């Protein structure tokens, strides 16, 4: 630091502690609420300290769910979310890495057209083309299927641009050497380019996994059968039912379970996550 001002350092700590407390408040309240029995919420304010129903609430939600509302067990919804998140992450990376390779390492007619078509996905978020996209997926018979959950979301301009940037920084000598050694484009791609890009791939995987896990609108629309519900979309259905009979302990337990996988990914993969985030947006 420029100069030593203990007062400013204390102030900075203070600001951060208050900030962290504000940021953490909702999750704290949810954790606490998920450990109480339903009737603890009937009178007055929510409890601010843990109850003794944690095991009962979580095991009930994971294994059977709230059966009266026709919801599948949370464990099942989490499995659906996992399949969707992995599918989206792997799918996005696979198709983007291939298209970036084609755009950077080949000269062919319509190269710029292809580039602009990919770019257009940036401008068409699913929220703005929601009705016609739903119709297309319905016409293709993809409602209530895993491909229906995954495929419409896997085109990604940002991932393609990221790989394009990465490939552009690879030295030309590398390609030259590979060509002299008689390697074809696919061999070069598989044996040289992919291994050299693996930290980028891993970083992107972290971001895309979180993106896929947290999807809401799309799974809400196209999964009408309860066995296909994902947890983020399912929790809303659960809370709508809860309007008549609020079972906050179960809803909050589900919210905690819905947050857990992406949260663990961010905390344990922090370095990769930050790298991926800052790079994809550049």
């Amino acid at each position, binding site marked *: *630091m*420029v100069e030593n001002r203990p007062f400013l350092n204390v102030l900075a700590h203070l600001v951060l502690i208050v900030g962290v407390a504000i940021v953490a408040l909702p999750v704290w*309240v949810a954790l606490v609420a998920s450990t109480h029995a339903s009737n603890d919420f009937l009178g007055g304010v929510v409890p601010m300290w843990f109850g003794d129903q944690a095991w009962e609430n979580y095991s009930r939600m994971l294994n059977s769910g709230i059966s009266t509302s026709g919801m599948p067990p949370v464990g099942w919804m989490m499995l659906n979310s996992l399949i969707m998140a992995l599918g989206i992450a792997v799918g996005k990376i696979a198709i983007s890495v291939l298209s970036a390779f084609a755009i950077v390492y080949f000269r062919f007619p319509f190269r710029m057209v292809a580039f602009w078509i990919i770019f257009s996905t940036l401008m068409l978020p699913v929220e*703005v083309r929601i009705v*016609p996209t739903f119709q297309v997926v319905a016409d293709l018979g993809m409602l209530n299927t895993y491909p229906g959950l995954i495929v419409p979301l896997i085109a990604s301009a940002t991932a393609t641009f990221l790989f394009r940037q990465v490939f552009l920084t690879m030295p030309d000598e590398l390609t030259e050497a590979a060509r002299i050694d008689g390697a074809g484009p696919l061999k070069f791609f598989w044996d040289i380019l992919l291994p050299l890009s693996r930290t980028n791939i891993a970083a992107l995987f972290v971001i895309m996994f979180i993106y896929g896990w947290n*999807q*809401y609108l799309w799974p809400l629309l196209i999964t009408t059968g309860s066995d296909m519900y994902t947890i983020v979309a399912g929790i809303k259905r659960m809370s709508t039912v809860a309007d008549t009979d609020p079972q906050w302990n179960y*809803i909050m337990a589900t919210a905690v379970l819905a947050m857990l996988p992406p949260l663990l990914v961010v905390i344990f993969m922090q370095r990769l996550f930050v790298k991926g985030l800052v790079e994809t947006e550049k």
Partner: protein
Amino acid sequence: MKKVVFNNKLLPLLLLAPQLIVTAIFFLWPAGQAVWQSFLREDAFGLKTEFIGLGNYKALFKSPEYLNSFSVTLIFTVSVTVVTMVFALLMAVAVDRLIKSEKVYTTLLIWPYAVAPAVAGILWWFIFNPSIGILPYVLRQLGINFNWIFDPTDAMIFVVIASAWSRISYSFLFFIAGLQSIPASLREAAAIDGAGPVKRFFTITLPLLSPTTFFLMVVNLVYALFETFAVIDATTLGGPAQSTNILVYKVYQDGFIGQNLGSSAAQSVILMAIVILLTVIQFRFVEKKVAY
């Protein structure tokens, strides 16, 4: 631009095919459909459609509900963006000062990124619950009655907080990166010249952060415009009295619940125009940033 490339005409097209096919089927085709449907009027049973040109658009701009949705969206997106960025900048500046504990605080502040907007909505819904929530309880002690179920202003405050919350970490990370790329020598020189920390912040740090700030502004606007759908749908459903019915939510409501396809499509097209504008601004800026 690569100097050394492979010579093959068919292979690159095969490599591009998966992405181009997905984009054509799930992006371009529906977008084209939206444009086409926006010129049509369908009767209530979907039996008859008629071409009405710009009729849907004209009706929209005469509809008080749609105009209301516009102003609601404006207030909402600007509030979310400002709240997010002010809070994130404050945290980033504080963390930047404390090099030793930077990692701990960063970890404690970035995790909300992982929380889905829908889940964030539900968490804040619980906190702001008028009968049992902790915040209305505290506010009641202070003599303030906060009830977002009936009060439009309270509802707006509630959705802004819920939407900004999960976004703070993102802006925070970019502000940190921006702050750390400012050369220490600049601030040292200013300190030697006798500029205090506050003066240094406003004359050196903030102007040098302006590219980051601008970038975050655009990205956060896009977030507030589109991705907050989940927050609204999980909490207020656009109410009370249309007070939180943002444009993205109205497209969905009119299209799926109201079955008014023509109007919903016209709204989609207007939203697309807004995204295109914001994307172009963003890319203009990114190009400039690369040129530094």
